[in-house]
């Protein structure tokens, strides 16, 4: 039964390093130093302190920095970097013409003040925490309310939320008035109930795995430490023991993966409104029931000749003349496919009460069940809960029956049933069925079947509005009015539901955490209490019975201005965002296996400056992008190449290919179709929002699909069809640094996709509209919008010839594919 056990031995990550004996001092754990500002020979070059550190090192290596880049190129570089979008032509002209000495400063201030900035830098953070809008793993179903955390991150970067506060809120936002922020704790893939084995060892292992993901996320993201390496035995290279690891787990041992109501001043009012609307919908259903056409089964009373609506996966109502009954039998005779599944079977009496509920004393029997514990069980057919994971499934393909026996006789007139009221599942739908009633004496009588329903066409059937056919005019008016009100109320309930909750963790009494021998949940050893790794210090003492208090204590310790790792790790991430490589090129590993910084003094100076500025990330951005280091051209110099091919010393600006999101967003910005609306539920990249298979990519985007890619509904593992292969993370493991690969699949996607063709046509149409009839001006404007410059005379001639023979859209297609467009200059 404990079949997990032999493998736990193997579960430790491969923490092997080439060098570095345990016991020698780890540089990253030394206090942040206040280094002296270096003296440089070329005193004319530096613009700020960063430059002195960089230049001192270059001079030491006998290298010279590259010349300053031209103004238009600098503006394009910094715009793509800070906002992920190219500058508008008018903005470039104004900047190039701006003769005031603080022109660069004002340009940067504008970019940092733009809401586009938070959207751009949130993406870097979301990569690290492996954010996604599905649950991953076994079924990869939608995680519908993950996005409030994404919005929180965007907002935090836009507001320049002090980083220490940012840390505290993500670990304990529930007690700091920022509920959505704790989405951080539960960004990982997780096995949902029902996917975990029914045996206890499977459950314990799943819980351990989910806690491990939280500890891993905290360690890597904030501290740049792979503490999870110590899950199975003491860390081989870093000062983290197994006891340390489990003590870290104890901080988050009360966190469950799940949705929580966001408590805002509005949320209480929302709840009241929701309860009221739900009661009203129940009333409306009862009132509307009398307009549902009466079923006329094949061997029942005379046929009316009227066809009822086809069955649909969500909700079906079968109405019949009021009948006194003790038992109801629902027999399935055919399904769309597979074994039939019903999420809830309701039977209403003439007073509008659901008498089928188990809580009303109703008993169930069936022809046979496919049992998946807590997902498909017979008891769930009348438990009052909806959805696939609260349903009954037959054990026979295409058939099966369920019988309900009430505690007493009831006068009933309606049976209501569905495959999945939540609308996620459409398979296993009963397409041919019979509903029979029996009184206490036993004789069965058919009251409804599918013979008078229209034929079911998969994907076409939605819950039917009340048929007005055969109703008197005043009845028809009444039915229409009630139905409209019901629709409105249901839509409002859906809005209230999603507006009010976030997948941000559920907090409960913490599990008792033990050191696990070899990481095996079946071999618990000493119990531990919350504590940080001994080598890293200690948190303030506190009351361990207070769950949130545990997390807050951890947060306070991480966010301390004297913590040696916290500020260093974050300034390094910011540096990497600007230059592609951090001063430490292993951004989530500041341990012994990670790299040492290329400029240790600069790293410490920046870390100190970060804390001194009140943990302002925008302050860091300003420092970096206004430096002479950042303002160098990207020209390749043989001396630099020979001495330092990686450009770690920054003898030139390290240009690089833009990220997937920046390419897509920039195409939309150039074509003029970018929708700049912010926040909220993600737009669809596929026809499905979760699942394992059959994702059909959206080909032509319209409406909210033209928003920035950070607002896409992110399906874990399923990379976006055109831009995903441009090294988009799949949100499985943390991506602290995206690889930059070049593949032929990228080429065919960007060259042939409908998206490129659409945006090329849109850019061509835009310039034709805005630049007037002269084709030269049209080409010029296309160049300025996409590339931020005028074409050279030979480029202009070349483009004009192609445009004449093949249309301007063909030219735009080449422009969007060009290296100049997809590389940061």
């Amino acid at each position: 039964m404990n079949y997990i056990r032999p493998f736990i031995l193997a579960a430790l990550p491969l923490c092997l390093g080439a060098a570095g004996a345990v016991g020698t001092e780890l540089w990253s754990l030394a206090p942040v130093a206040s280094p002296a500002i270096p003296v440089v020979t070329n005193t004319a070059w530096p613009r700020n302190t960063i430059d002195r550190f960089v230049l001192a090192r270059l001079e030491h290596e006998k290298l010279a920095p590259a010349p300053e880049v031209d103004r238009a190129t600098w503006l394009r570089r910094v715009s793509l970097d800070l906002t992920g979008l190219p500058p508008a032509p008018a903005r470039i002209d104004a900047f190039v013409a701006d003769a005031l000495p603080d022109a660069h400063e004002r340009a940067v201030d504008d970019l940092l003040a733009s809401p586009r900035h938070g959207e751009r830098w949130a993406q870097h953070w979301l990569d690290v925490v492996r954010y996604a809008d599905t649950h991953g793993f076994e079924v990869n179903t939608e995680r519908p309310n993950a996005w409030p955390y994404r919005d929180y991150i965007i907002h935090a970067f836009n507001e320049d939320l002090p980083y220490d506060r940012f840390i505290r809120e993500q670990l304990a936002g529930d007690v700091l008035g920022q509920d959505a922020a704790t989405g951080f704790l539960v960004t990982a893939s997780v096995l949902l109930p029902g996917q975990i084995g029914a045996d206890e060892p499977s459950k314990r292992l799943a819980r351990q795995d989910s806690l491990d993901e939280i500890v891993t996320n905290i360690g890597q993201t904030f501290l740049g430490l792979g503490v999870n390496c110590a899950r199975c035995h003491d860390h081989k290279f870093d000062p983290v023991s197994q006891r340390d690891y489990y003590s870290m787990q104890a901080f988050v041992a009360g966190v469950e993966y799940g949705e929580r109501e966001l408590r805002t001043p509005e949320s209480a009012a929302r709840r009241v409104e929701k309860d009221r609307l739900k009661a009203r919908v129940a009333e409306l259903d009862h009132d509307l029931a009398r307009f549902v056409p009466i079923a006329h089964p094949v061997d029942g009373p005379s046929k009316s000749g009227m066809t009822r609506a086809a069955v649909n996966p969500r909700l079906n109502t079968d109405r019949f003349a009021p009948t006194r009954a003790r038992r109801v039998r629902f027999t399935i005779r055919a399904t769309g496919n597979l074994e039939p599944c019903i999420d809830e079977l309701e039977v209403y009496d003439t007073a509008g009460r659901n008498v089928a509920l188990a809580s009303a004393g109703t008993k169930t029997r069936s022809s046979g069940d496919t049992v998946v514990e807590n997902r498909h069980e017979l008891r769930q057919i009348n438990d009052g809960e909806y959805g696939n994971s609260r349903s009954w499934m037959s054990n026979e393909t295409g058939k099966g029956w369920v019988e309900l026996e009430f505690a007493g006789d009831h006068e009933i007139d309606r049976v209501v049933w569905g495959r999945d009221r939540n609308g996620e599942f459409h398979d296993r739908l009963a397409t041919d069925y019979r509903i029979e009633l029996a009184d206490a004496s036993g004789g069965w009588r058919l009251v409804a079947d599918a013979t008078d329903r229209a034929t079911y066409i998969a994907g076409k059937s939605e819950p039917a509005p009340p048929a007005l056919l055969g109703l008197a005019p005043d009845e028809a008016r009444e039915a229409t009015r009630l139905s409209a009100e019901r629709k409105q109320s249901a839509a409002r309930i859906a809005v209230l539901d999603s507006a009010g909750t976030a997948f941000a963790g559920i907090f409960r009494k913490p599990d008792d955490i033990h050191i696990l021998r070899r990481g095996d949940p079946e071999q618990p050893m000493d119990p531990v209490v919350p504590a940080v790794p001994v080598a890293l210090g200690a948190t303030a003492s506190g009351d361990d019975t207070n769950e949130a208090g545990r997390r807050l204590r951890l947060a306070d310790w991480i966010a301390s201005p004297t913590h040696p790792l916290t500020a260093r790790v974050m300034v390094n991430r910011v540096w990497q965002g600007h230059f592609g490589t951090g001063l430490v090129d292993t951004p989530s590993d500041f341990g012994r296996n990670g790299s040492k910084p290329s400029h240790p003094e600069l790293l410490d100076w920046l870390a100190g400056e970060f804390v001194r500025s009140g943990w302002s990330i925008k302050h860091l951005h300003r420092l970096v992008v206004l430096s002479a280091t950042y303002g160098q051209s990207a020209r390749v110099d043989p001396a630099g190449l020979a001495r330092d091919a990686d450009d770690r010393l920054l003898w030139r600006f390290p240009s690089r290919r833009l990220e997937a999101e920046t390419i897509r967003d920039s195409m939309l910005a150039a074509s003029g179709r970018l929708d700049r609306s912010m926040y909220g539920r993600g737009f669809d990249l596929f026809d499905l929002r979760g699942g394992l298979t059959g994702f059909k990519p959206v080909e032509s985007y319209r409406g909210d699909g033209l928003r920035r890619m950070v607002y896409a509904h992110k399906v874990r593992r399923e990379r976006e069809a055109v831009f995903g292969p441009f090294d988009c993370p799949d949100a499985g493991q943390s991506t602290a640094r995206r690889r930059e690969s070049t593949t032929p699949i990228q080429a065919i996607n960007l060259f042939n996709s409908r998206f490129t063709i659409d945006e090329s046509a849109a850019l061509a149409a835009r310039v034709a509209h805005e630049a007037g009839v002269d084709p030269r001006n049209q080409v010029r404007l296309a160049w300025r919008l996409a590339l931020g410059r005028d074409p050279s005379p030979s480029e202009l001639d070349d483009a004009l010839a192609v445009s004449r023979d093949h249309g301007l859209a063909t030219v735009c297609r080449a422009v969007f594919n060009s290296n100049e467009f997809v590389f940061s200059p």
Partner: protein
Amino acid sequence: MIHPPQSLSPAGAGLLDRRRFLTGASTALGSIAFSSLLGREGLLAADPGFAASRPFAPRHGHFPARAKNVVVIFCAGAVSQLETWDYKPELIRHDGKPLEGGPAVTFQGPAGNLARPQYAFRRRGQTGKWVSVLIPHLASLTDDIAFVHSLTSKSNTHGPAENFLSTGFALDGFPSLGSWISYGLGSENQDLPAFVSIPDPRGVPQAGSNNWGPGFLPAVFQGTPMSAKDPIRHLAPPAGIGRGDDDAARALLGRMNARHADAHPGDGRLAARIASYELAARMQLSVPELADLSSEPAHILRLYGADDASNANKAAFARNCILARRLVERGVRFVQLFNGAYASGGELNWDGHNKLREQYDKHAAILDQPAAALIRDLRQRGLLESTLVVWCTEFGRMPMFQKGAEGRDHNPDGFTCWMTGAGVRPGVSHGTTDELGRRAVADIHPLYDFNATILHLLGLDHEKLVYEHNGVRRRLTNVEGNVIRELLA
């Protein structure tokens, strides 16, 4: 070059980190530094001309390879070892009795009594190996096959277990076997992807694209999904774009990139991206030819069962098998061929919880003839000399039926996979489960060992094929894995 001295072997990462490599390789000094690095680390023997512009350039492994190509036949849903390859006569005797000391609850719920194998077994071939009558075509090949009957998995849940089989980790996000191999060896064909993944006509398996994902390896090494019915996406522009417009756009792009490269001399990444468009253009020509099965003669279609009008799923799978052979013929390094789709109560894959016999009759009819034909066809063309064929599934099934059902629950404690072809010792049955098939008892091999053996046959040392990610030197086999020597010729 500046390499922080304490840095972990940057060779694996540096091999493909274009900033380091391309700019480095474009200078003599860079090349020297690079080769010395490889020499020192004893990692991959690098083709000195290797560059990101030729990511699939063939590369040597760590030692001479027995196999050049791999075809993995991946049966999703967990094939019962007891109905196929692992003959358990004692289970017939114990039919209907409880399993003493067995679990009361297994993955899906309460356990029922022991249940006899649902198919008769017959002795096959020279070795006289007992194989079920469920799969007669594959059974006729047993003399050439090396079986491992004692494999174990780390998870009893399909998604994580498929991750474990394909990536060596039960968690999401790690590189797949095919990605590791194309990272290590490149490909023999520069006009096609190094790694092609062919989904079952009925859908993709439970762990989906994780089975062919690159994890944290460069994206170029991910499997490219295609099948006989669905070609590679975006291979051609959408309808309405004329050939002339297409050529004009490509030519203009070439001139723009050339001008841009002239203005930015020495940046190897620009050249790599230009080269990627050239490879894409070659793919646009070679893939349609590859996927066009109309040139296959009638006797080949018949051999595979691709002409079976009575069984559309079998015919479609057979066409995928023919496609697999064509990929191998063209030198594609790694072909992953799926049989079985996602969770469906055992209807669309091998997950026989409830009506095992009824469902396995259907699934075996799809798998058996086409897969056996693929192996025969590879052999008759001499391709099996250089091609390793692997048959695998994520775990096995319990010797008991589930309570109230006629099917078996998940069992990761002892199951069968096999391999045949290049470098494989024919006619071997290695490892055993107990007399009822509940768990492996002798020569127990976690799937790490099976994967280590596959790498070994390709000339790769599973302990040396590494890639640094977030400060950890990652391997396909984590910190485990022993080559199963008994399977080697």
